[in-house]
């Protein structure tokens, strides 16, 4: 239930503006890879392009040996990649249960879906207590849990998380990061985009630094935590 993601020479444009300049990234099987970078560096653009929501001008995205560039978003999910998007984006008018069920849309194994629903509820009992509640009425933290849980419902081999800590209280963030680690230990490969560099690097195996659309650094996460330049730029000294 795990896979390797390899991004090669990925270039993405918005009109005339180039947002990614030949980005190379490896997300090794079974590990957590953190992607750091300032606002506007292109992190969301990279995740959206991997998911097939943006079309790159050039480059390749491969899960194991399968090329994903050119495939529509729904086929990318079938290939084993799902994403919890920036800003949660749960479906406000649907209930928590319906949101989770939509996450499992591509699956046909009803028993497996039920088991995964139990797993998500086991990770976040707060969601379990609110299965029949409309998602728009959840708190910010609960919506973030739901967005991640929804992405897990397709039983992805690779989970893309875009700023799961955004706008949440530290205690909630700590809980979410524990869960990300638990999901990873169950075998899911994770690519984690974060502004909260310290927390991200603490649970990650590898870290990348993206600056204005280009990779500036790649190193084991522990090494980046000790890197003076990184400390200055992303860890607040």
């Amino acid at each position, binding site marked *: 239930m795990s896979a390797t993601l390899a991004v090669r020479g990925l270039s993405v444009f918005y009109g005339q503006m180039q947002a990614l300049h030949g980005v190379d990234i490896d997300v090794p099987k079974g590990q957590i890879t953190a992607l750091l970078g300032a606002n506007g560096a292109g992190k969301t653009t990279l995740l959206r392009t991997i*998911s097939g*929501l943006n079309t790159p001008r050039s480059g390749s995205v491969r899960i194991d040996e399968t090329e994903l560039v050119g495939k*529509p*978003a*729904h*086929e*990318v*999910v*079938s290939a084993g990649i*799902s*994403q919890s*998007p920036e800003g949660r*984006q*749960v*479906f*406000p*008018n*649907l209930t928590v249960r*319906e949101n989770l*069920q*939509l*996450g499992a*849309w*591509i699956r046909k194994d009803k028993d497996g879906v039920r088991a995964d629903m139990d797993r998500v509820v086991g990770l976040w009992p707060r969601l379990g207590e609110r299965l029949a509640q409309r998602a728009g009425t959840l708190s910010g933290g609960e919506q973030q849990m739901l967005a991640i849980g*929804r992405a897990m419902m*397709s039983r992805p081999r690779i989970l893309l998380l875009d700023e799961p800590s955004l706008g949440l209280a530290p205690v909630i963030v700590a809980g979410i990061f524990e869960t990300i680690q638990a999901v990873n230990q169950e075998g899911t490969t994770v690519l984690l985009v974060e502004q909260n560099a310290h927390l991200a690097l603490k649970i990650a195996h590898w870290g990348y630094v993206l600056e204005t659309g280009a990779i500036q650094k790649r190193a084991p996460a522990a090494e980046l935590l000790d890197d003076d330049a990184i400390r200055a730029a992303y860890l607040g000294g």
Partner: protein
Amino acid sequence: MRQGALAYGILALLLAAVWGIELFLVPWTDPYLTDIVIRVGINLLAVMGLALVLGFTGQFSLGHAGFMAVGAYAAAASTLYAGVPPVGGIVVGGLVAALAGFGVGLPTLRLSGDYLAVVTLGFNGIIIVLIQNSPALGGAQGLTGLPVATTFGLTFTCVVLGGLFIRNLLVSPLGRVFEAVRDNEIATRSLGIDTTRAKVLAFVVGAFWAGVSGALIAYYRSSIFPSQFQFDRSIEQVAMVVLGGTGSLSGPLIAATILSALPEVLRPVAQYRMVIYSIVLIAMMILRPTGLLGNHELSDVLKRLWQKRPGARSTAA
């Protein structure tokens, strides 16, 4: 299995009621009243399709009356040129309108919402111009000599079938997909859902029932005119869905009933109809910005009222 049996039971019950009214009540009812009710029923069919497309799936179709025109003229032509009886003609009208919906929807629904509004608007206009310039379809003078078959019973048989069909679609898992597309299409795509397919499906189903609605018009007064299916009719239907509540099926149907019957009730002041519409619309936007029922169904509202009735046990935990 039990679910299915229940659905068929409800269907049988509703159809029995419709035909009971047709056989035992309509003959003794003022024909003027029956006429209003049939017109309301015809509008209900068109509006329930638009409720699916606009209210639930969030696709701004501004040319729903164009699909009514396609249905009406396809039915009329099948009867006049191929001798198809009215009931068959209604099916033909629905299917041809659905096909037109597919033709308009497939290329357009891939693009963002703004294109759909423009294209459907254009479609409505083009259909009218095509009919006006087609001698075989009677041109601007309209088609005459059609058999009269649209009774209360036939109209409301279609309303019941259409209403149950769309309701079943909406309570199925696909119904959640439609709403997800409306709320956040990108997020829906990112879950592995082919949103274009979902949108086209909603659009084709909506066009089908608009076609049936148009076909009923064709068999109502033995003649049809292109002017019956113009843009103002499409806008009126959008108003009915928005007023009734996007994300509700019963809300738009109630709004359609009120707004279709209103001009009859207000006949003495008919020239102010559009003014009254506008006032009602503005009042609605201020008082109930989410429409009559918002995204709830009539049954939810009644249930809540029932629970809140004086003497009811509190359900609060």
